[in-house]
């Protein structure tokens, strides 16, 4: 690995980091706009044309707010909580394959930071670390509402991680690999032989379970009980102010971005698009692939928001019922069906 390769990797890391931050920033704006449009309003439109500078104004406000650490809070953990939350949500993007290889002047550029052969497991590890930021923050606040929110987040994430993992197992049985790059390559094009290549068409039930669990893992409505305003003031971030609160809100949006990317890669063909074999310039295919992948991710982010402004919040016991009594048996059934299908029809 030469110096240029290292520099290219470094550049890629910086670009992906910046992109995920910018997307998270504009997700806050998009969320407000989508909410407004779904409710026949216009949303923020004062800062710049169509309110396009609203995220900058919000960010500036967050930075300038007074920093409050409650007297009886554990100061170290109080700061560690949001830091961990945003760190963990940022490193999730490392294993996502953003596109096919680019060839520029003899250099082959991999549009992926790390092609780990256990990419799916890495994602899972990162996702399950995510709850620690919330738990630590909620516990360190020394506030009963924060603690309740944190406990809810922890038990909800643990419950839904099981169903999520089981739905992934069925997917891995058909793909036979844990590397996200390989999974994306297997879904090349759109139609092969007599069936679609994208995994969502061979694993529809698995995808349904996965997306429901993704809603729960990112603490999005209808599973946003950890920050449920009507019951818990602000949930785990009740005591937070200034940029530490900003980090928590930010990490939620980065999580949405990452889970959109994971869903697109695992189930919706990643950077692949229909008729890609008819374009003969490989670089053009790679660039179009990146665009297509981001389009898919944006669709998922929009879907997250669309659902948030449509479906009311679950009650906590209903949430647990759905997780343990419905999704887990369903995903086990999905594994069995997939096994039978692989044994007899492949």
């Amino acid at each position: 690995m030469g110096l240029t390769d290292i520099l290219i990797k470094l550049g890629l890391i910086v670009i992906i980091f910046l992109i995920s931050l910018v997307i998270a920033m504009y997700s806050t704006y998009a969320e407000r706009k989508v909410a407004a449009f779904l409710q026949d309003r216009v949303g923020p439109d004062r800062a710049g044309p169509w309110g396009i500078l609203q995220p900058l104004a919000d960010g500036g406000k967050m930075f300038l707010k007074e920093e409050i650490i409650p007297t009886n809070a554990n100061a170290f953990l109080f700061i560690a909580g949001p830091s961990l939350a945003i760190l963990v949500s940022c490193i999730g993007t490392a294993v996502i394959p953003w596109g096919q290889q680019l060839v520029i002047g003899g250099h082959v550029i991999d549009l992926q930071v790390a092609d780990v052969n256990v990419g799916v497991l890495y994602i899972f590890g990162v996702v399950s670390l995510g709850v620690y930021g919330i738990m630590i923050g909620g516990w360190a606040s020394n506030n009963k509402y924060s603690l309740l929110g944190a406990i809810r987040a922890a038990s909800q994430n643990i419950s839904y991680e099981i169903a999520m993992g089981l739905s992934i197992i069925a997917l891995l049985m058909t793909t036979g690999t844990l590397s996200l790059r390989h999974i994306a390559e297997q879904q090349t094009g759109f139609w092969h032989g007599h069936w679609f290549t994208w995994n969502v068409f061979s694993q529809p039930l698995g995808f349904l379970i996965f997306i429901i669990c993704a809603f729960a893992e990112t603490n999005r409505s209808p599973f946003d009980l950890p920050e449920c305003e009507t019951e818990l003031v602000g949930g785990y971030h009740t005591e937070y102010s200034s940029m530490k609160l900003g980090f928590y809100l930010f990490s939620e949006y980065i999580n949405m971005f990452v889970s959109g990317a994971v869903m697109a890669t695992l189930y919706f063909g990643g950077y692949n698009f229909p008729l890609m074999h008819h374009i003969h310039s490989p670089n053009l295919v790679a660039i179009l692939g990146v665009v297509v992948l981001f389009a898919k991710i944006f669709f998922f982010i929009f879907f997250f928001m669309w659902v948030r402004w449509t479906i009311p919040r679950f009650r906590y016991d209903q949430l647990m019922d759905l997780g343990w009594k419905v999704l887990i048996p369903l995903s086990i059934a999905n594994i069995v069906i997939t096994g039978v299908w692989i044994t007899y029809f492949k």
Partner: protein
Amino acid sequence: MEPLSNKRKVIESKPLSFMERIYLPAIFKGLAITMKHFFRKPVTIRYPEEKREYSENFRGLHSLKRDEQGRERCTACGLCALSCPAEAITMISAERQKGEEHLYREEKYAAVYEINMLRCIFCGLCEEACPKEAIYLDGPHVASDYLRKDFIYGKDKLVEAPLNQ
């Protein structure tokens, strides 16, 4: 007990059917409804730039009218104060002196005319009671202020501007 009407409806709590229990059809129906609203025209009126038109019989701030020659119409008969259900109007009458014919139309006029805007309910009974067509509620909203005493509007705020100005 005898039912008062035949509209009594027994509410029964049926267990959910299978289709209802899997939630998804209802969720997709909801998503379709919200998507329909996504493409609908927003009903927002961007306030400082756009203003919503008032209805024609909107009742706002009172104004004490002048006649064609610019004289105050009010004759301080007190019917408005009498009709006011909120008792918001007080006035002190005075007799018109020689040489004041160009100021007051009648021989008696209101030297002091005060309306407490915190008491007023903008019902419009004063304008209905007025025999001289001297008071109308045709102004804008009452402006906000800090002190209660500033909400007692005197003649300086209520009387119409003179004609020649």
